[in-house]
């Protein structure tokens, strides 16, 4: 039987994003064939791809609000069609802000902007905040991250506006009940964060990543592409990944092997491959 072709990933480059190269590299390491697509290329090109990544950065210099201008680009309309077809879409940091601004997430029908990513709330700090955190994957979720249920994934975050919030009372509880609060800030053992600094921005329910109801679109603030290789993990990070990192001391082949963020990309690429197989079979 011939080997299945690698799923094709498009990393969409809005003006001002700055994580497109390492994101493409992480997708490639997880088995995808990754291209970087400029925002003003022909939107029809999207149909040729199996999965999509909106990388971090400062698209359109965060004019109006982070992500707000990119959310109005033509290419987002084409992306909405691809998402409706069930293809996996991941927005990281500024990419998450774009997905939220464009209404992909949480994607409730008939209402505008249910969610927002608001300025961080941090005791004794203001502005940008960058550190490593631990994320716990929801135990039951429609997301392609479901195969990582209950796992704890450490990775860095870096943002000034990453607080998941909503004007609608009870929305986060509803989303959590539906498994859409896929990633929550936690401690190294996986207990969901009770407050700052484990929850670094004051997000409701310590939400770090939220998906749509169908589960194929995920908006997350932390950066899995900065934890895709073991060598990227800080040597004294608490928990099993820090231990793995120290155990790999002196062994370059292990350090260039998978880090905690790799599993996330692998799950996404795997979901894209499975979807295409299902489509091809029908």
């Amino acid at each position, binding site marked *: 039987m011939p080997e299945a072709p690698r799923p094709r990933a498009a990393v969409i480059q809005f003006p001002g994003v700055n994580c497109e190269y390492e994101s493409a590299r*992480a997708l490639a390491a997880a088995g995808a064939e990754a291209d970087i697509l400029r925002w003003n290329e022909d939107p029809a090109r999207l149909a040729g791809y199996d999965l999509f990544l909106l990388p971090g950065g400062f698209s359109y210099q965060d004019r109006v609000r982070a992500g707000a201008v990119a959310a109005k680009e033509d290419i987002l309309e084409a992306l909405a069609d691809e998402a409706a077809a069930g293809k996996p879409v991941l927005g990281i940091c500024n990419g998450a802000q774009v997905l939220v601004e464009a209404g992909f997430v949480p994607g409730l029908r008939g209402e505008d902007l249910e969610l927002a990513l608001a*300025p961080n709330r941090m005791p004794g700090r203001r*502005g940008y905040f960058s550190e490593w955190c631990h994320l716990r994957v929801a135990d039951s979720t429609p997301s392609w991250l479901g195969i990582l249920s209950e796992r704890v994934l450490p990775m*860095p975050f870096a943002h000034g506006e990453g607080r998941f919030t909503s004007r609608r009372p009870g929305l986060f509880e509803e989303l959590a009940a539906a498994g859409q609060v896929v990633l929550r800030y936690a401690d190294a053992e996986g207990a969901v964060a009770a407050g700052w600094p484990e929850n670094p921005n004051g997000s409701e329910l310590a939400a770090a990543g939220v998906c749509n109801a169908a589960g194929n679109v995920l908006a997350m603030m932390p*950066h899995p592409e900065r934890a895709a290789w073991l060598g*990227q993990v800080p040597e*004294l990070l*608490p928990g099993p990944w820090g231990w793995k990192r120290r155990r790999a001391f002196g062994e370059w082949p292990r350090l260039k092997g998978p880090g905690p963020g790799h599993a996330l990309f692998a799950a996404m690429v795997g979901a894209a491959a499975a979807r295409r197989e299902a489509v091809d079979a029908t």
Partner: protein
Amino acid sequence: MAAVIEVSRLSRADLESALAEHSLTLKPDEARRVAELLGRDPTLTELTLFDTMWSEHCSYKSSRAHLARHLPTEGPDVVLGPVEDAGIVRLGEADGRRWCLVMSHESHNHPSQVLPFEGAATGIGGIVRDVYCMGAEVVGVLDPLRFGDPRGEHADRSREIMAGVVDGIWHYANALGVPNLGGDLVFHPGYDDNCLVNVVAVGLVPEEEIIRSRVPAEARAEPYDFILVGKPTDESGFGGAAFASVILDEEEENRGAVQVPDPFLKRVLSEANKAVLALARRGGAAIGFKDLGAGGIACVSSELAEAGGFGMRVDLDRVAVSDPALPDRVIACSETQERYGLAVPRRLTPRVLAIYNEEYDLPHVYPGACARVAGEVTNDGRYTLTRGGAVLCDAPVAVVTKGIRYEREAAPAARDLPDPPPALDRDLGADLLALLADPNLCDRRYLYQHYDGEVQGNACLRPGEADAGVLAPFAGSPLGLAVTCDGNPWYGARDPYRGAALAVCEAVRNLACVGAWPLALTDCLNYGNPEKPGPFGAFAEGVRGIGDACRGIGRLAEDDQAPAPRHPIPVISGNVSFYNESARGAAIPPSPIVALAGRVPDISVVPGLQLKAAGDPVYLLGARRAELGGGAWHRVCRGSEGGAVPEPDFARVRTESLAVIRAVQAGWVRAAHDVGEGGLATAAAEMLLGRRGEPARGLDLDATGGDGGGGLPPASLLFSETGGFLVELAPAADDAFAELCRALGVACLRLGAVTAAPRLVLRAGGAVLVDLDAGELAAAWQGALPRLFPAGEETPDGAREVADA
């Protein structure tokens, strides 16, 4: 020809007032010299151009002779010394290519004092352009920062400036997508009226893809255009270089000389530039590429031409401007940010313009931004600037770019402060806690967390995790890159020569801790008014100190491990910042700041500074001497700056560093930290605390004999600032390490071991000198810095304010 200023006819007094009327800083004699060189009276645009070119900032008119005399700039690894905006050295092979390291180092002191946010942001913006225009990708920045006393007479102003500078740095660098690799933060009352914001940028480029800032020789054979790309030219930053070269006086009036930052446009431009450089490579076309900084369009176009031995004709009518009513000389010389100049073969011009204006859609991405042909390269060696048919400048290129020199008087530095009386019966544990809580030694994590240290995905050791920042920038190779920066104003104030030399010594030690071979040094020499013999004497001594240290320590590399240096550490780029002096006449302490980059052959064995495993032996390299002068313990615990500044011992730095580098590369070292400010006790506490201030281990060390039998009193043993190393070894490496040190003639002393209990115990001569719980150390160390920032300030009831951005 446009109207001229009749400098040759005006009396000295009239000339002075004419120059002042046009806000020119040229002296009357200098204006007359311009007329002499031109052979006629200059236009206002020409005078403005020379005003910039002959500013201290651009011309190095006072400093150049000293730099040339003392600083070594060549070596086996050097590709390009300090002739352009950035220096280049060979780093090594990875992924099948020969990679070079590009490095640039500058100051943005005056702008940051006046407008902290914009000043610091455009400091980053300018320094990364210097590296980009060599064809490199910028992989990191470092920011050595110096502010006034946060608890002194001008505390509010100093803290406000600090907060603005930090905001400016993160807003720019984070948005641009360039990680922070380190830097340092020093508070000293000597910076109350003059903060220092130095910036270092580091980049990587394959050797065959290096681009030079000159019109290429190919322009003899085919026509070349001069293309200007980026933000539309406006009046921002007009007179900036001249502003950097005078004493800060009427701050309010000078704000227009500070540029306006735009990291967003810079990011889009960088992506478009990459596409243009790739197009040129594919087409086999040589191009010239230079960023616009001081002196704007006039400087960039004349210098591109001069460096290649060509002439240039620029038509200001073809330049995109924010406002057509801008005066000629403003369009010619303003320092509007986010612009580049290119010399490209005319056959490629349409495609280059299409990349900028269509593919990357600059005009829609940013109002008024675009690429346009603004002139052409000529073979006649003349520099011509026109607008609306009027000739604004017409002179041989060599005249326009010809510099000016001064021989300044240098007074010997003399400042002899006595030793404070001996300190007996002190609680050294309490002293250590006081040191750790001092703004100059406390935890910097609060600061680092403002900066994105992870973007690009190459972080290996982040700021605070080790003595140097380490990157692993190559997907398929363990080759890494390490960078650090240093400079201690108390040493500089006590002894300008030693202060400068010690900055180099400490930088070498920092790199040794991460097992890096030191490759190349850059410097930024921050001093007061060079027209005064005192500050100029301190400058001259500082340059001599850096040069002596670079030669005395010498290059260290795989093929260069002899006890005596064979090559110097090369100085490949740098900057001189004079006039760091207030109108009240208070000059900053002599502040040479150096940055040092090195090659890490295998990132998998590089240790951080935090302790790893209970039972591991801990060694001291570098016997303690009575060297507390200008040191933290005298200053913080005893209120004295007196005593002997450490003596730079180049031979010892060389051999001790060699021992540590080889031990790290052999995989024997689990943690390493240099001993410097705050001495042995502070270094030990820092190893226990680590970057995150979450101690998991403790230390029990006996410093008896740590002075090599010199009979030092306990306080000197713990706090003397003699350079050295503390090293945690894997237990199995004990004997091999001792043997390595013996072979190199390095004295190493086993002081004790890492303990499971999180406690710091320091002993000597049978007595326990310090016995502190790690939690107590962490509390002292972590609390100090956040309280100096507005959002972290204590409110009257002691609770922290909760701030919303």
